[in-house]
């Protein structure tokens, strides 16, 4: 999982549960602002305007654009994976074996499609 690998690379300890918990920072700088922004876009919540303002104010314009771009493209990437049923990569499965069950990944619809359960 690239969140863990990229955090390891800078000597930071990341809490992977931030991927599945609401507005959690996971030990990543401005993580709670980022995850709240992502949630508001994906879920199209009433919080979107406030989350966007908070993200822009906290991150500044350049980082805000990167956050918006990442949220945008991953809404496409998940659909690439889910519409084609591609198998997960072996290395990814190996690196996440210790956390998939704990964080509930194995119960997701995407896991069912790939025969993990």
């Amino acid at each position, binding site marked *: 999982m690239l*969140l863990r690998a*990229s*955090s390891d*690379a*800078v000597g930071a300890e*990341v809490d992977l549960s*931030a*991927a599945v918990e609401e507005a959690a920072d996971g030990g*990543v*700088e*401005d*993580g709670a602002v*980022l*995850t709240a*922004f*992502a*949630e508001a*876009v*994906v*879920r*199209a919540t009433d919080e*979107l305007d406030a989350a*966007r303002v908070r993200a*822009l104010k906290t991150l500044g*314009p*350049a*980082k805000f*654009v*990167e*956050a*918006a*771009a*990442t*949220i*945008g*493209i*991953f*809404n*496409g*990437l*998940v*659909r*690439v*994976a*889910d*519409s*084609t*049923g*591609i*198998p*997960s*990569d072996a290395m*990814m499965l190996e690196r*996440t074996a210790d956390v998939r069950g704990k964080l509930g*990944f194995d119960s*997701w*619809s*995407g*896991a069912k*499609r790939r025969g993990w359960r």
Partner: protein
Amino acid sequence: MSFEDARFPVPVREDLTTALRRSWADIGRPGTWWTGPERVAMAALARAERIQRNEPPWNRNRGEPGTPLPGKAVEAARKIGADPTHLDRDWAEAAIAELGDARYVELASVVVTTVAADAFCEAMGIKHETLPEPEAGEPTRERPDGMGDIGAWVPAQVVDWSRANVARALSLVPEGVRTFFRMVVAMYSGAATDFEKMVWDHRPLARPQVELLAARVSALNQCFY
């Protein structure tokens, strides 16, 4: 011109807007298996359905179809666009049996390109981009060599492949790969050499910040990939 700089509330990198403009224009062009009007119709259906994503499918306002697409393509554009957590092998196999594998993959490529651009606009706080004008012309109907079974629902490139599976998921329609992954490079990964690095200096956000966003969006869509 689409994605005009003046529409954004803050400056956006030129390579990002260039990628968006080129991929957006691609949607309106004749594809490999579908015409320009058919491709724009897919984008319109996916957008209209996704806008209503918080409503259950049976409660959504779909109006009159008025589309050049066959029924299964209409269903696929809506489902991939708005309900990715409900996609499964049985449904996909039925859709592929009716549409053909390459036509299904091209449809998916149009929908994911539309969704990514729309979600970016929502994050930026601007209106969705006007859909491109469909261009006249016939699809090329070219099926690439080197496709095989990698355990996916559709054939994918099996020759000379060492990268992540998601990057070859649409390889049955190379034009669809170019259209969508041009945006992936500009909006996420950068060049291949950048992507391999765990510490990024080609983006303003640190890589753990980008990957946290990626992980959260994936989790919200119940997609482990």
